[in-house]
């Protein structure tokens, strides 16, 4: 059955002109999405506990390696290498895993936020109540979006603390795309964007499972495009012909020239091999080889008229880049949510 009502009794006409207060809608939003929000809290909470316990051990190990004296002794160097190798591998895996957390939140919180009501048909009831469908959509989407973004932001603070030793000892660089997206304001911004993508996909597709798949695909495409093509262009890269590129720099590309002509990869390999034969035909250890390739041969080549060019983003651009990325993601999210609310108002049923 269906029941429509013509509202208003003459004596209470005034009350009908007032919109339903937002705080009353907040209860409904909480009641409908408490399990999804609880799921996010449990997921991030469990990860946070793991990070905190792992982080304590990691910081302890780092403090031991940093306190070792003298720092250049073989024992101390081995301590640092073990730290970067053992803990570093785990930390890199965690960073990679965190990269998909925004996608999961977008898919399992964002996509069902409207799609579930559209799929089950309960939207017909909600849309004919006094609240109005656009306000209803705003009241559902915005608080949940803010909640997941704030949770992600707090969580990324914890991750930054966890990962700090690897920046301090220079083993990792903050601008590395894999680390860049899960720290600073970027993690919260990506979570917000994923949620907004999910909400819009849910509205357009109207079914939960296909909307989840579409959200994952759209998010993956966007994140990949940003990491591969966008982030390095947030500011014009610096170009240097010296060998003294700062350790915290994000190297974008490196090439050699001689007399204004760029050397191809194969030509470069020949030049390197020839130089290696000249300088040190026999190598005794891995460390020796590393020293040869990164310092001795380049210096030798420069003396012989070659020039090494490096284009890079200096580590000091971390926060400007964070605000650029956070800014466009926030704008994109606002646009997607506005489009969602507008489309809800436009669709017939």
């Amino acid at each position, binding site marked *: *059955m269906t*029941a429509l009502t*013509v509202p208003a*009794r003459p004596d209470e006409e005034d009350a*009908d002109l007032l919109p339903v207060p937002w705080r009353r809608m907040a209860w409904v939003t909480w*009641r409908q999405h408490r399990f999804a929000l609880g799921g996010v809290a449990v997921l991030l909470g469990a990860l946070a506990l793991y990070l905190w316990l792992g982080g304590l051990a990691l910081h302890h190990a780092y403090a031991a390696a940093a306190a070792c004296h003298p720092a250049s002794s073989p024992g101390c160097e081995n301590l640092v290498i073990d730290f970067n190798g053992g803990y570093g591998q785990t930390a890199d895996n965690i960073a990679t895993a965190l990269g998909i957390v925004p996608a999961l939140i977008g898919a399992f919180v964002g996509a069902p936020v409207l799609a579930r009501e559209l799929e089950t048909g309960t939207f017909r009831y909600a849309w004919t*109540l*006094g609240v109005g469908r656009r306000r209803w959509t705003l009241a559902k989407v915005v608080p949940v979006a803010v909640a997941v973004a704030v949770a992600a932001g707090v969580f990324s603070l914890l991750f930054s603390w966890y990962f700090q030793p690897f920046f301090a000892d220079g083993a990792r660089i903050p601008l590395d795309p894999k680390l860049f997206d899960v720290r600073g304001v970027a993690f919260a911004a990506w979570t917000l964007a994923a949620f907004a993508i999910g909400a819009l996909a849910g509205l357009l597709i109207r079914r939960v499972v296909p909307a989840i798949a579409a959200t994952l695909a759209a998010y993956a495409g966007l994140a990949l495009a940003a990491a591969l093509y966008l982030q390095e262009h947030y500011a014009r890269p610096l170009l240097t012909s010296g060998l003294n590129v700062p350790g915290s720099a994000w190297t974008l590309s490196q090439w050699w020239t001689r007399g204004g002509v760029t050397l191809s990869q194969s030509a470069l390999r020949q030049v390197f091999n020839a130089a290696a034969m000249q300088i040190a035909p026999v190598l005794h250890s891995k460390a020796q080889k590393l020293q040869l390739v990164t310092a001795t041969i380049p210096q030798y080549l420069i003396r012989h008229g070659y020039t090494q060019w490096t284009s890079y983003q200096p580590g000091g651009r971390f926060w400007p880049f964070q605000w650029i990325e956070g800014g466009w993601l926030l704008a994109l999210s606002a646009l997607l949510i506005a489009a969602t609310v507008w489309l809800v108002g436009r669709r017939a049923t």
Partner: protein
Amino acid sequence: MSAADLLHLTGNLTRRFDQPYARARLGELGIPLRRKAGKLSGGQQAQLALTLALARRPRLPVLDEPAAMLDPIARHDFMATVLAAAAADGVSVLLSSHVLTELERVASYLILLSRGRVRLAGAVGDLLAAHHRDSLEELALNYLRENPAEVAK
């Protein structure tokens, strides 16, 4: 969602909602507030929907086939409560139905629609008297049969 959740939700999403009235009405009908709405019987679901509509204190509730999903006994009871509620609130109810005998018990004014057009309209008593019929079913069937051209159009 439980019946209580639905009351709370509707109360929060409408400008006016008579929460005590809704609770009292469900209590009288013996509908458990904590039970999920989907687990209620068809008659109870219809009563819940009616309660949610009436608690908004409408001036003119429009009920479109409200009892279509119910068995005959539930339908009879449901119609009785619709009438009682409407009388208690002092409101008119606009009710649509295909079951003419059902309407005869509850309706005071009839509009007969066929193919999207109004065929007959008037107070039920007046219509019966004017066409010398005993029941609405007889009246409607005979009227539509006697005026086939009008129906076909």
